[in-house]
């Protein structure tokens, strides 16, 4: 309850790892390994979240109320081991949006300064 009243901007800017994780969870709950995989895929393998970085961020985001644990179940695509799944909270969703807007603003500014000539506008 209290969390939804908090200003999402108070947590900005997010760490790169934090934003990656929020992004990975934006389209549904995932377990840690899946988060890591998605981040790696999206960044063409450039960002590889190590276990310490990933779970350190998850720990802090849990306590900030950005994400929550959903449940623990086997991932049918991998093996039969039980995995803990995480999903965005409503507050996490708003923080992710705010961060995306912040970044978009930066990109606009860069474009206005002709720093992104070789990229087409979205």
């Amino acid at each position, binding site marked *: 309850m209290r969390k939804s009243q908090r200003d999402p901007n108070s947590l900005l800017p997010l760490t790169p790892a934090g934003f990656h994780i929020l992004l990975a969870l934006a389209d549904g709950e995932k377990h*840690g390994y899946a988060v890591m995989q998605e981040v790696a895929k999206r960044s063409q393998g450039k960002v590889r979240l190590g276990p*310490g970085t990933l779970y350190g961020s998850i*720990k802090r985001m849990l306590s900030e109320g950005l994400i929550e644990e959903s449940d623990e179940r086997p991932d049918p695509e991998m093996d039969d081991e039980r995995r803990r799944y995480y999903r965005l909270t409503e507050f996490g969703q708003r923080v992710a949006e705010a961060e995306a807007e912040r970044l978009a603003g930066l990109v606009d500014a860069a474009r206005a300064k002709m720093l992104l000539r070789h990229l087409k506008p979205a």
Partner: protein
Amino acid sequence: MMKKNHSRSERIFRALLRAFPFDFRWKHGREMEQMFRQRRKEEERQGGAMGTLKLWWETLADIARTAPREHLEILAQDVGFALRLMRKNLGFTAVAVLTLALGIGANTAIFSVVNAVLLRPLPFADEDRLVRLYDLSHREGGEGVRVGHSQRNFFTIREQAQSFESVAAQAYQVLSLTLDEGPGRVVCIGVSESWLETLGVQPIRGRGFSPNEEKAGSDSRVVLVSYGFWQRRLGGDPAPVGRTIVLDGQSHTIIGVMPRGFNYPYGSEMWRPRVFDPTNGRSHMLNAQARLKPGVTRQQAQAELDIISQRLEREYPETNRGYTLLLRATRDSLVDNNQTVILLLLVAVGFVLVIACANVANLLLARSVMRQKEFAVRAALGASRFRQLRQLLTESILLSLVGGALGVLFAHWVVRFLVALLPRRMSDIMDEVHIDTTVLVFSLLVAFAVGALVGLVPAFRVSRFNLQELLKEGGRSGAGSGGHRLLSALVVGEIALALVLLTGAGLMVQNLYRLQNSDLGFSTENLVSMQIAFPEATYADPSARIIFVQQALERVRALPGITGAGVINIFPFTDGNRLAGFALEGQPEDPDRAPMVNHRVVSPGYFGMMKVPLVRGRWFTERDSSNSQPVVLVSESMARRYWPGEDPVGKRVRVVPSEAGAPWLTVVGVVGDVVQPRLGDDIEETWYVPYAQSLEPGTSWTVMEIYLAVRTAIDPAVAVDSVKRAIWQVDKTLPVYDVISGASFYAETISPKRVSTILGVCFSALGLFMAVLGIYGVASYAVSQRTHEIGIRMALGAQPGHILRWILRQGILLVLLGVAIGLAGAVALTRFMSSLLSEVEATDPVTFAGVAFLLAAVALLACYLPARRATKVDPMVALRCE
């Protein structure tokens, strides 16, 4: 095979996870392992060995980066929580921090002394190979007395001993230094060839002595000065080398400055070459040291010295019989005077610290009982036992670190106080006592250890709490029998330690008190003494000294406010001595077994001024001159021992071995015994020869330093300046120094004892205070825990008197147990003090009984106050507490 490989790398990964905090691992460890396993499979599929290598590299880097962060986060949380807690309970915090500050501070202060005096490396290269050499005199029996070498012995060792790389000697000299503000006095060491090489030191500015300068001796007119001399007397002149200074009226060139802290031997400020006489086998005045050849042990060198000493005795029986040669490690020779007292003080502050720890542990334990609910709630919220332990430790270590920081400040102040207490002579060494990095590291470690120790006591109790029990129990919290036992054990320990401390301090106080109040045989009231040194250059002729003394005494006696003045070679308030072997007329003379007396040289008027009584015969007068019959006064103890039942007046004695036919001295009187407090019980018998006669060759040794003592009718401190001026009217180049007056005699002469006693008393008072506080705390706590029980008892008809006795009985038991253990400990430990106690036995029953009584009384009072409060409990209120 593959499977095995997997499980091995997983095991390694699991081990690596231990770098993370327990709670983090507990929460995410399994997922992290899963993730690692998955990635490893993936990498193996794609990249083979290179991929696996890359995976390990990334994983290690990741853990190294993130694990410390997790720990820091917890630490920050715990520190934040602990700080809030400290602020919330300011009273508790203040008591705990102050207790720890006193304990750690006392240890830091004494450790800084230990560090400076015992631990810090000597300012010599390869000090392990450096040894001091002595002649060991067996003339007084026993294990022998260490004295300096005769010059001939030194040269013999230097030529014959193969064990040494080099051998060098030095002799102490006091020179007058002409300064703008009047003649000053400087301790200058005359050193033999290769002295600097033997010690392994080099000047930090300028150069050492050249071979030519060493050969020329004092004629070379060059000196090395100490760092302190450069800073203090030359004002830190940027170009000290090449400056000239006037010593004993002759100009000398400074050729170098020695390193900071180099004052060897003890308190020297200046060094110059000196030529020694290889043919002189008599006076044992040379201090020598040698550097062992690499690989030669001290035992081997000593064995060689033994052979040389036998050879010397055969060759020069008249001077070397009764002497052997001895070698000791230089470090031992430098520290042995101070070692016992410093180590004892270290033990004492150690005890204070243990008491402080026990007190703080008590406080924390009591508080942890109050906080049981808090811990139970945390545990219910998922904090692991380890996490709770960690938080408790953070709290106690934080307390201890704050206490330690305060303690270092306190220590800084104690050290300054110590330096101020000591006579100037000793502050040279104390200059080196300061809080340096070693000391700070020591304090930090102590604070850490203390914090961990006092934190562990309650932490372990907390971790044993049974969660459900506690939550069920509701508001009422109790420590349970285990907690009480622990509290009681801590209190018993505190009392025992405090008792040992008090006993030690009590013995030292008794000793000092008796020392200060012993009858010295003379009066110290309105007495001033000062030392005067005759420069060899201008006072080589004895008659010059005699004339000076006569003229100076005349002028001083004529001063207003002076009621008497006299001169003596060794004043009772010094630790110097000069012994003479002598023979009685008509008895066989055996130089080896000649009886010894304290040899004193005095001017007429000395005894009258000192108020030493004349028992029979007559005083010296101005008529006892170098032309008249040689005379001597003997002390009562000497008269008793050598002429029992006879009148010694008219008997004759003389110095042996009789160099060039020492003349017979006729006893003209008997004077009262005078005690020289710092000499202890060596030899009581003393004789006195007139100053005017002592300077004749063959009678005795030349006396180049004298003490002038005056008795004043006015404030002695006021008289000092006029006395100095009177001396300088006779000779304005003479250094006058070490002025000691009136009450400060004791302060100056027994001050090392006084300082250690003051410290001992302070520490034991601190220990007592803390122990009593501890008892009081525990008793109050016990009463507050039993309010309910007391209420029931009173409701059932118990009288206040019963309650009082019931509570007191428990306190008395603890106190008596503590006192009994403490007494046993004190008996065991005070043995080590016996060398410091000249006036009192180390097992002095009066001290033991007194201290035990005092402690028991104070401790019982500390129990009584809370017990009395218990009797005021209103049964109804106590029962309603439920």
